[in-house]
């Protein structure tokens, strides 16, 4: 199997990048074969790209549920493992349990949100990747990963639309 070639086209503005994406689609490049890399969050709507799937909110919800369960364990199970009477209060009073439940739910939710970003973005990832450092200086790059047969046409279109550079992408250590 031949190694797949990728092209990285660098634009300095959103509009030409959005035009380029439209043209590439007409040339038969599937949306799944493109990725936009940018130094600021450019929304899918601005670029006319299908919206991205993210698991982060679901993971957050799951983490909240898990945190709530930990809270239940701390507030209602642990006092029964070794019953100690204090101040004439019940072993498992509800009002203080509300506090424990709240804190544990929030902690579970926020940790899983954080971990969710790592999980969804495959962080940490120190393998070589297609990238140019100019991106963090505000450039917008389109990475085309599966090229149609007439590669030259793609390159020409990208150049025409104002790409600053159209290069064969080389995976490099960031």
């Amino acid at each position, binding site marked *: 199997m031949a190694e797949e070639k990728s092209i990285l086209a660098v634009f300095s503005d959103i509009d030409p990048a959005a035009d380029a994406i439209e043209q590439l689609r007409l040339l038969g490049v599937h949306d799944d074969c493109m*990725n936009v*890399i940018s130094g600021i969050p450019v929304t899918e709507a601005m670029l006319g790209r299908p919206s991205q799937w993210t698991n982060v909110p679901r993971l957050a919800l799951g983490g909240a549920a898990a945190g709530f369960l930990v809270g239940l364990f701390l507030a209602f199970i642990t006092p029964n493992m070794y019953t100690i009477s204090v101040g004439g209060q019940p072993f498992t009073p509800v009002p203080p349990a509300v506090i424990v439940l709240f*804190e544990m739910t929030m902690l579970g939710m926020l940790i899983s949100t954080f971990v969710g970003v790592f999980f*969804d*973005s495959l962080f940490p990832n120190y393998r070589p990747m297609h990238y140019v450092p100019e991106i*963090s200086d505000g450039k917008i790059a389109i990475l085309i990963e599966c090229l149609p047969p007439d590669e030259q046409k793609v390159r020409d279109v990208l150049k025409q639309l104002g790409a600053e550079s159209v290069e064969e992408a080389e995976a490099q250590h960031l």
Partner: protein
Amino acid sequence: MADRKHHTSHEEHLREQRLMLDPMPRGKMNEMVMEAMHTTSWKFWLVFGLLAAIVAYALFYKWGVMILEGLGVAGVNRPSYWGIFLVNTVFWIGISHAGTFISAILRVFKAEFRRPFTRAAELMTTFGLVQAGFSIFMHMGRVWLSYWLMPIPNQRQLWPNFHSPLSWDLLAITTYLLSSTMYLFLPLIPDLAMARDRTPDGTWQKVFYRTLALGFRGTEGEWTHLRNALNIFAFAIIPVMFSVHTIVSWDFAMATRPGWSSTIFGPYFVIGALHSGMGAVVMVLAVVRGTMKNMKYFIRPEHFEAIGKLMLIISMAWAYFFFNDYIVQWYGGDKWTKELLHWHEAGPMGWMWFAMLIFNVAIPWATLWNKKWRSTPWLIFIVGMLINVGMWFERYIIVPISLTINRMPFTWRLYQPGIEVWLGIGTLAFFILLYMTASKLIPLIPVWEVQEGQMAHSLKKYGRETVVTVSELE
């Protein structure tokens, strides 16, 4: 012709005033931020060394002495079992509230002026909480056993007592420390990637940034996940922040003591935390603007102006809660509470009570109403500092001074601080030291957020008036 000229100058004036209307190429801004990080004068190292020496002596050496000899070297006694340790704990947790207020509440409400200094404020949260942790652990009689308070399985088969406000505190502060650190780190990732891209190979900095940037490139997916996560954090961390200082207030409010047992302590403490926190934010911003290179572009009088307005509102809210607490206690007429209120105002530390009101209310009200004054960095720096002194006094009045008066007059005795003064200075020095270290290691300005804001802002003409418009990009 003259009319057009007037308009241009008005436009120019607006651009000069507002960072969001004064865009620069991203590469230029990146360069400025990196340069600010890398430009270090000998004065920095002088202060750094001095602070490091203070931390080593006042925090670690003195704490070691106290651990070995016992709390007798501090000033705590019967009846003031809690002294400056708890004052500092409450104080530092208060400072930490500013970061969340700015980076979460202002983010949720899309207050655009927040953009350049969310990180500067959020750093205060994390580092402030570290000092709060130090202060509370110092105060323990047997700190080497502090892990007994953690809810972890252990061979004693004993779990913490969740009836105790201190256990709630532990959970709340842990939650807050972890979540604010994560909330600091997430929006930092793109800036760490920027720093990675601008650092030459073969340096330790490259390794540092490459490791921390986690391989971030800025793909659509990465941004989407990050944006979603930041949104969740911004909303969820607000109730966590409120819960933290409310629970801190419950350490006092749950106690059967005159003056402490008050239902308004929760919101009173939260607003007090924001009061000192905002004061600390302007202090930090004034120092950052004054001492770091290129920061005059990012942090402008408009930012002090905007925070000054918030400070004025918070000062009014603080006065409102203070008066609520005071008049209910006063009207109740309980003899011990009356004794306590009299002690606050006319006792040997009465000057502190009046100073608190002057610093927290009179001075902010007298100065911050004026737009020009609150836009002046050095002036608002002084106001912020006085507010912090006033808020420290407030906690001092609530903790050791209020502890002096209890229902057993035979035990009344004044509290005289001992080694805890050193330890308090140590935490302050450590806070500044951590902040200085961070300012040399991580980009202090969230450049991508600034650029995003600059993209969203433009000028529009309505009739003959040029006004600022903001588009919602998110």
